């Protein structure tokens, strides 16, 4: 597939599949870090080593049967900056890989669920994405691919330290499992600090994503394991799963309490946000994320019925600066981006409403 396939202004197909607890867990991500024995890590290797590694991984990936997955290969330095940014915003490559000059590349599966980053911080980073909470399932996909690659690649492995990685925070299993969670009720009711603290004590890292620092914009949090050594993959996944389930329970409880105590305030808030998204002419990414979070919660609790979840998923991706510029077809200043962002949202949300209404009328006719 050519690069354009991966740059389309749509949410990737896998996001449309409804995962488990999909009202709260947006996605699950598994990442395995691997390196090749006898080669220095990207931090200190030469361009020549980088090229050899790139070649070996290319060969290995093309000599295995990847369960029907087809991969497309892209060299980072050949990509324009804006296209790299779009891939970062889709979580197909990391911000670090996007900045790499030495033979760094990425293999992306055509359904965008798997990406294999080459010569990022480690020689190999296998990443799998899935909708909803599916830690075990997603790990299995990554691990299977990893086992197949292992037959063709000399992985750097040591009996006591496990899979060797450039950074000792990844050594051992090389596994980083993350769940992306939408936690508006815990945030509104100011319980999120307590949750964050509890998680940190359990060895989990919490990050707010695309928020502006202290405010976790869009109320989206990424929770992942910090420990990779001294625990098996199974234990790591099980612990994270338990934590995720606990947070889901807390978020559900907080949602119920909010609805019970302040339903009319919520209804007002959700509908105002929807109105803003549909009619505003200038929209910063902060405001857009906040409004989308409100509408999403409105849909989850059944107050808003006219916006399908997949449209919201799509909007959450599209409001990011790279996508907005791609939509405009040119690089833009921040203030221009805000105008294009508003336009994009108007189109996405109003066109959909249109379709729904037409359907409604048809049904009425019958």
């Amino acid at each position: 597939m050519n690069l354009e396939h991966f740059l389309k202004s749509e949410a990737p197909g896998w996001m449309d599949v409804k995962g488990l607890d999909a009202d709260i867990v947006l996605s699950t991500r598994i990442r395995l870090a691997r390196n090749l024995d006898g080669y220095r890590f990207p931090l200190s290797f030469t361009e020549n080593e980088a090229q050899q590694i790139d070649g070996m991984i290319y060969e290995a990936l093309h000599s295995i049967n990847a369960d029907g997955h087809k991969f497309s290969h892209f060299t980072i330095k050949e990509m324009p900056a804006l296209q790299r940014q779009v891939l970062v915003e889709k979580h197909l490559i990391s911000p670090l890989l996007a900045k790499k000059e030495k033979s760094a590349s990425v293999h992306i599966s055509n359904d965008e669920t798997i990406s294999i980053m080459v010569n990022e911080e480690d020689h190999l980073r296998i990443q799998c994405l899935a909708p909803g909470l599916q830690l075990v399932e997603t790990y299995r996909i990554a691990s299977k691919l990893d086992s197949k690659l292992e037959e063709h690649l000399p992985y750097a492995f040591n009996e006591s330290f496990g899979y060797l990685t450039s950074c000792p925070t990844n050594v051992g299993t090389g596994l980083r499992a993350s769940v992306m969670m939408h936690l508006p009720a815990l945030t509104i009711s100011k319980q999120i600090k307590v949750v964050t603290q509890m998680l940190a004590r359990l060895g989990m890292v919490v990050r707010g994503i695309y928020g502006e620092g202290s405010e976790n914009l869009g109320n989206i949090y990424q929770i992942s394991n910090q420990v990779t050594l001294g625990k098996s993959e199974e234990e790591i996944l099980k612990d994270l799963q338990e934590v995720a389930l606990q947070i889901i329970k807390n978020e559900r409880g907080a949602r119920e309490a909010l609805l019970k105590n302040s339903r009319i305030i919520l209804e007002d808030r959700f509908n105002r946000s929807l109105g803003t998204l549909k009619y505003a002419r200038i929209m910063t990414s902060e405001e857009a994320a906040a409004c989308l979070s409100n509408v999403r919660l409105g849909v989850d609790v059944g107050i808003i019925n006219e916006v399908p979840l997949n449209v919201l998923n799509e909007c959450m991706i599209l409001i990011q600066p790279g996508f907005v510029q791609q939509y405009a077809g040119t690089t833009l200043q921040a203030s221009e981006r805000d105008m294009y962002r508003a336009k994009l949202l108007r189109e996405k949300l109003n066109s959909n409403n249109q379709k729904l209404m037409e359907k409604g009328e048809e049904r009425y006719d019958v």
Partner: protein
Amino acid sequence: MVCEHCKEQQATITVTQVVNGQKSEKHYCEVCAQNFHPFNLDFHKEEQIPIHQLVSNLFGLPVWNNGPQEKAPSTSQKSAKCPTCGFTFRKFLNEGKLGCPQCYETFGKQLPLVLTKIQAGTTHSGKAPGKPNHHNEWIQKQIDSTREQLQLAIHEERFEDAADLRDEIREMERRLERGGVDTP
């Protein structure tokens, strides 16, 4: 808010960590957040935290104080150089990263001191090349615990949940029958 590290980009990521029982929250841009780890001395140096404080706070590594009982290992640590990439242990502490796989052998004695501070242990347990996985055993455990949840759901008359759980169990059993996974 501006990134607390580079002070240039907009901070988009909040990293929360507990160090010695104290919670800290930092706001970084995406690129800086990638480089965030508790013992990357260079990284934190730019935030004007004195190195020795970091070493004692984050690592609890007394090695650098040249205390009497530490003297012998610290001299040998300073001189050890990785034959493949030329990294010294000091360089590793500054970069927060190792230079090559062989570094793990070169610094095999000192690394556990750092690893105990950031990991759950110093020895790997889990997947290994060529080693069969314990997935079957694990799936069986998952099935057992899901069955318990199913009983509870039925008991509490949450029938939709029960149906979902039953499907889950079926799927896991099917997988078990296929002979597990991950073995080549």
